[in-house]
């Protein structure tokens, strides 16, 4: 589905199931450099368990318009704006990696809008390797390669 948030098109996968506003809502937030399609089967499974599922493309990612947002705080306010645009009084929020940081920030700032919180791939401190940051600033393909390399690990 496409919806306007702050004048920009925002895209969300809904598990290809029709939205029923009577059902509880679940918002899925992807990590840095990714988009809604990391949640492929989860989105469908959540939707078909009787939820409104919204796997969001963050601004500038996937099929959502606009420049990417810079800070975790900005993204968490944007999640709140999306909920207002979609007329969701509250939702459960699932975040992966950077999306989990956004989910925590959102939970702290908007406790009344939060039903349940689910955090994946998160730690107390989440430093990013300086070489990855440098590569990302240069728009060097090394950045996604490092993300994939560290995500998969040595065993896979």
């Amino acid at each position, binding site marked *: 589905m496409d919806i306007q948030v702050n004048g920009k098109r925002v895209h969300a996968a809904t598990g*290809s199931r029709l939205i029923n506003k009577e059902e509880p809502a679940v918002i899925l937030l992807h990590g840095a450099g990714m*988009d809604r399609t990391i949640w492929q089967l989860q989105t*469908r*499974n959540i939707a078909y368990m009787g939820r409104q599922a919204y796997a969001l493309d963050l601004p500038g990612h996937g*099929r959502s318009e606009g420049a990417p947002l810079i800070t975790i705080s900005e993204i968490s306010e944007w999640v709140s704006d999306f909920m207002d645009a979609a007329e969701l009084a509250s939702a459960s929020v699932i975040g992966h990696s950077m999306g989990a940081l956004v989910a925590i920030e959102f939970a702290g700032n908007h406790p009344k809008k939060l039903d349940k919180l689910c955090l994946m791939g998160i730690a107390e401190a989440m430093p990013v390797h300086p070489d990855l940051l440098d590569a990302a600033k240069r728009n060097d393909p*090394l950045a996604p390669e490092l993300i994939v*390399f560290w995500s998969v690990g040595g065993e896979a």
Partner: protein
Amino acid sequence: MVKPKFPKFDTLSLHAGQQPDPTTGARAVPIYQTTSYMFEDTDHAASLYNLERPGHIYSRLSNPTVSVLEERVAALESGVGAVATASGMAALFLAVATLMDKGSHIVASGSLYGGSHNLFTYTLPRFGIETTFVNPRDPEAFRKAIRPETRLVFGETLGNPGIEIMDLPRVADVAHEASVPFMIDSTFTTPYLMNPFEHGVDLIMHSLTKFMGGHGLAIAGALVDSGRFDWYASGKFPTLTEPYAGYHGLNFADEFGPQAFIMRARAEGLKDFGACLSPQNAFYILQGIETLPLRIQKHVSNAEAVVTFLDEADEVEWVNYPSLKSHPDHELAKKLLPKGAGSILSFGVRGGRIAGRRFIESVLLASHLANVGDAKTLVIHPASTTHQQMSTDDLALAGIGEGMIRLSVGIEDIQDIIDDLKQALRASQKG
């Protein structure tokens, strides 16, 4: 500066897609010879059927042994996924059926495997899909042949049997300017000699029966998705960007993003057309892929030695192989195929059709049969076998003369191969 340490090609050939079996410790890929898989409960069954969970349902759709092969081929090609099929032809038809409907059009190289040519020329028109064939060496001819209803540009990395090399980056540009994907049959080069996705190709099909298996034991095919074609931006592929009633309105591009094509090919094509690969045959092909890098090196060095011999032989009128300076694609070969141009070549025996027949009937080590890419050396006369259904004009477009011999150079001792060719050439001139 840190660098990712991804496993290299030779390692992937042995390991990609498989870990030792956690239950038994079996190191080799087990053959899961089963049609069906137990469901945990009715909810689990329903979610598998509805593409909400990963898992196996029925071996027409997926099978654990076949999955290892699919992941291995996808890894070797740097694709986002693969579907293994009953044959290379099944892979080609699966791609066409996933991409287009009645009224669609394909632009294809005129120098194709005879089976592919037959599908495009005689069979697909019965289902309302037409094909225009063009010279594989002329990217502008591809551009001119594209129509508003074109949905695929198709060719072979090395033409069959003319060994033409397509200028993949230029043909890819032509396809992408028209917002259609570019698919390549990479059977003759295998991922060891070339990675077509690096040259702008969107989809790859293989006959795994050939060099990938290498042993001539099993028929198999594969379709590999680069994940790079933007189906939404193209706007020409409703099978991928619009709701599919077959799965209650599932939109493949929306839910699966870069894997939209390969998911639809499995969820619709394997399910409805049923040309799946058996686990036993997947196992055979996996055994072949383990030694792919070693075999291809030997295939190429033997082919180059055979070409040198044939080029100097009095009984041979011409030799067609890209390592020869006389080959029209010699420079392109150096760019696209730096590790070698495979081991399939064609040549003309002095004395035309009759001498060609005598040559084929005189070989002792080489096998006269309808295959290529076996570890054993193979010979055939295309005009009377693999391409015999083609008209004279189509034969000319494909560069097939009546005296042409196609040779698939194996990995026997090179001196034995050359000795056999030498005595058969001598015999071809007697009569």
